[in-house]
């Protein structure tokens, strides 16, 4: 007994205790829901059997049902566009702003802090605000566009099936820029000044310095930001719920919202689970890439 207490207080027992706590947490709050979700995706589940395990197993039938749905291809393509476009613009604008605020000018740090305001706001609130901005008949964006003479006719951002997905993407880009900027700013700050000075003495111009110093030294951060971006973008639910609810005619529907619709609008919980399992698989691949990119992190 004494021995156990001693090892816990001051020895390998303490390590095991800490490890155990983390493991218990992970099993209870991550592993269990994921496994439960996988099981549900292999069964026939409706709301009334959600608390019991005794449900008929149907193998991969739910998965084939999902892919047989007429909107499956639309949703897949929308999800790809949503993720890729969101990340490309979040990253490039975020990186640009990070570089900009890296310059020494009065108030740079305060302004950079202000940018975080968007990130702090809940996506549902951001969605509500963008909904007003995008409104077809009395929205601010349409007013500005027509006042500047850029468009003759109003653009129905949220109800035109050719535009709705891009409206959601624009709002999502806006929401994600601060996060990208802050993470990349931290990376930029950790690059030693003298490397740049040495390069400048050797006659390297700004573009050359960016290409051969900044980019290679930011590799780990960029990898991390991209992987986290993919995960966050695939989690983006509130914004879609607030803006378009996947509509009109599923033109802005993406996998995560579809999964919710199946589970909680038509109560086909097993189908909803199947969609989310597919998303989990994809996120695991991205997460593996993220872990690899952080492993390559090096100090100077």
């Amino acid at each position, binding site marked *: 007994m004494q021995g156990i207490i001693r090892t816990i207080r001051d020895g390998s027992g303490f390590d095991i205790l800490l490890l155990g706590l983390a493991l218990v947490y992970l099993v209870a709050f991550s592993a269990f829901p994921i496994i439960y979700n996988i099981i549900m995706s292999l069964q026939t589940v409706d*709301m009334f059997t959600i608390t019991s395990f005794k449900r008929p197993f149907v193998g991969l039938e739910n998965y084939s049902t999902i892919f047989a749905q007429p909107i499956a291809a639309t949703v897949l393509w929308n999800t790809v566009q949503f993720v890729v476009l969101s990340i490309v613009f979040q990253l490039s604008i975020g990186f640009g702003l990070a570089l900009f605020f890296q310059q020494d000018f009065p108030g740079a740090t305060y302004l950079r802090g202000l940018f975080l305001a968007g990130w702090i706001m809940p996506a549902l609130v951001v969605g509500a605000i963008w909904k007003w901005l995008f409104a077809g008949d009395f929205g601010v964006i349409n007013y500005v566009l027509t006042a500047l003479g850029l468009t003759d006719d109003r653009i129905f951002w949220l109800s035109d099936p050719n535009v709705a997905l891009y409206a959601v993407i624009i709002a999502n880009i806006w929401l994600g820029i601060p996060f990208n900027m802050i993470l990349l700013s931290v990376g930029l700050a950790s690059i030693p000044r003298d490397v740049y000075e040495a390069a400048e003495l050797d006659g390297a111009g700004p573009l050359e310095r960016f290409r051969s110093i900044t980019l290679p030294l930011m590799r780990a951060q960029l990898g991390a930001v991209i992987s986290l971006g993919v995960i966050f973008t695939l989690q983006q639910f509130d914004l879609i719920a607030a803006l378009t609810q996947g509509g*009109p*005619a599923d*033109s802005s529907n993406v996998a995560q919202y579809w999964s919710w619709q199946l589970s909680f609008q038509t*109560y086909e919980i097993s189908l909803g689970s199947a969609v989310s399992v597919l998303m989990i698989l994809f996120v695991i691949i991205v997460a593996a890439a993220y872990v690899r990119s952080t492993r390559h992190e090096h100090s100077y």
Partner: protein
Amino acid sequence: MKRISHWIAAAALLISGAAQAEPVTLDIWTIDRPDQYMYLLKDEFEQAHPDIKLNIKTVQFRDMVNDLARATATGESPDVTYIDNPEVALFASRGLLLDLSAMLAESKVIKKDDIFPGPLSSVTWDDKIYGVPRGANTIALYYNADMFKAKGLDPDKPPRTWDELYAAAKKLNDPAKNVYGLAFSAVATEEGTFQFLPWLQMAGGDYNKVDTEGGEKVLNFWGKLIDEKLASPDTLIRSQYDSTGTFNAGNAAMAISGPWELPRMGREAKFDYRAALLPVPRDGATRASALGEGDNVILAKSEHPKEAFILLEFLYSKMPDVWNRFGFVPAANVQSNNPNNPAIYAVFEESMKYARNRGPHPEWPKISKAIYTAIQSSLTHQSDAKTALAAAQKQIDGVLND
């Protein structure tokens, strides 16, 4: 825990030997806010029935089906709850609701024959009755009489047919002043289906038969209104409440919605607003209207079915006041006490006669989704009306023949 407290209560009763009955507490679920229906009637009920106490819990409308399903699975369901009309069949078909047929037959308060056929069918499943409508609502055509006059239309002769509706919308439409002819909702939710079904029923068809010529006519008519910008393209994403908001603000000359709009309309609309029956495809065509609102039901597992039924009778007895106090149309043939907005009340009261239930079917949400998906893909021209309705019919058949 509940079980234990019951035992303690029973033991206490035995020991004291008191003859007086313990007050029974009924657990009630409702979608009402504290200034609405159930909360307002709680005190009146408890005064009239001192031996029954009510313990009310509010559940969000959109969570009700989920929460109730989970509660019945874990054995924590309430005694009495609200259920939206099209969802009654879901719970009744699984034996989760108490069959009220016998109690209703003996009731002195609720006369089954007084309940309008639409509301009655919404609580009927397999020839048994599982609930009592708390009221009803339906949709009609609101119109801005001032704009009618300004555009040379006779405000005493609102459009009666689709052609007249189109002509009026065209005349009232005024893009320069940001005024659309008509506001309605084709949103991709239950509300879109709710607005669409009466049109379909009038033109020929119903929830189980949507791929009809009439169905195509409706979608093409709606499409024409939106394509010609007589109704805002945002009709596709606006709920009924949001659409009617544009009418109240003077940005639409007519609006299709229900009596729940009236309290806000009274505050916001600074013009002479009136209501008319939903226009029909042509003169003399069969009328139809949507049936909304929900029902009070008793859960099959309730330990106090008798007291719960007393509550249902009490709630039903308030039917003559529901228009003025809660914004419902009576669901039964009763005389309303001095209805506010009497002209509009008369329109809704008449509409009620044509109101048809959605379903009933235990898998209503899937049917509804097939319908609003067809509406959306047709109105956005992703497919023509015929193809969209055929696709919906295939899905609906899949549900119905399951």
